[in-house]
């Protein structure tokens, strides 16, 4: 069992030579290529990440620009809407005013026409009354009448006048 702890220097030397030779051969034929491929892949990933970050930054800038533009458009739309509302209100007021004026004018015309027709009617009535009075006076003067006959004559004249009025209507 003591041999377990006694190193064999020949085996030790062979181990060292074998291991160092293996390190050199694997470095030359395996690890160099693998490390190169790994670093290349990592570099590619880093480049892709950088490109993605840059694209993201650009997209964020573009988004901010579009947001600002959108806000500006919204403001312009709101302003134009306010202007349109104001214009509409002004046109509405103008139309109402014109309509009111026209209505008043028509009313005035109608009133004037009514007044004129009324005056005309009154003139006609007055003329008729005068004629009737003249007629009655003629009749009164032509015959001796008492109060009763005079009353009858007036009534007759009035009936004639009302007959003429209804016939005119």
């Amino acid at each position, binding site marked *: 069992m003591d041999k377990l702890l006694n*190193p064999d220097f020949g*085996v030790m030397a062979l181990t060292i030579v*074998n291991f160092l030779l293996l390190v050199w051969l694997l*470095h030359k034929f395996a690890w160099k290529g*693998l490390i190169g491929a790994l670093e290349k892949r990592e570099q590619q990933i880093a480049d892709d990440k950088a490109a993605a970050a840059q694209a993201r930054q650009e997209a964020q800038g573009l988004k901010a620009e579009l947001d600002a533009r959108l806000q500006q458009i919204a403001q312009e739309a709101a302003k134009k809407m306010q202007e349109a509302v104001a214009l509409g209100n002004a046109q509405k007021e103008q139309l109402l005013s014109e309509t009111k004026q026209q209505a008043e004018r028509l009313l005035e015309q109608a009133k004037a026409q009514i007044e004129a027709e009324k005056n005309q009617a009154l003139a006609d009535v007055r003329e008729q009354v005068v004629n009737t009075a003249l007629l009655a006076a003629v009749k009164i003067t032509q015959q001796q009448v008492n109060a009763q006959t005079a009353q009858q004559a007036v009534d007759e004249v009035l009936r004639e006048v009302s007959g003429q009025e209804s016939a005119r209507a």
Partner: protein
Amino acid sequence: MEVSETIAHHILDHDFGVMVGTLHLPVTAHTVTMVCISLVLLLTGILMARRGKSVFSRLLHTAGEEYVAFMRDGIVVPGMGVEGKQFLSYFCTLFLFILFSNLAGLIPQMKTITSNISVTGGLALCSGALIVYCGLKFHGLWGFIKTFVPGGTPWWLVPLIFPLEVISLLIRVCVLAIRLFANMLSGHMVLLSLLLIIFIIGGMSKMAGTGAAIPAMGLEIFMTLLELLVAFLQAYVFTLLTSIYVGLVIHSH
């Protein structure tokens, strides 16, 4: 043959060395296994580095890249800093070599060569040489010598501290060898002892031996699984400690 002799016979390496002129070449089960492991590793490494079109080839290549990335980000850079990247090949080889050496004993007719103090001693000497090389490379001769005296040490303590620090470095290298050797040897001995229990009890009574075989085999399976874990763990520990020791020399201030 006594039990201890049986265990020793199975564990000890037997030299069938040949003489090439005056040079003695140790041809043992361990050295043959070591050469076989080296060839397998070399072949695996070459296959991993090639990027063929087949799925297997691409899988192997990806596994190789992941292994290198693990060694770099999990062991070398944390232990040695970015300066350690130039020694990545050494650590990649070291881990796989120790791992395959630990696992080789699970294959019939092959040996766990890391249960041989000469093999672990050789690997520890390589690590020690790397420590010294890095000390000389990064600090120069005088700078490397100064790393053995911590900053702020009173001048009259230097004659005491300097030899202690040198011995500390040597002990670290020795401990690397002994830790790996002891862990792998003990596991091997436990496995062998469990098997021998069956034969010892069977020698006394065949019925008892048959009864003892069931728990012994259960323990044998458990210990084999444990050995599998220990194989990975010890390869990792040896590689990690080497990187830490080298890192301590590189970043001594």
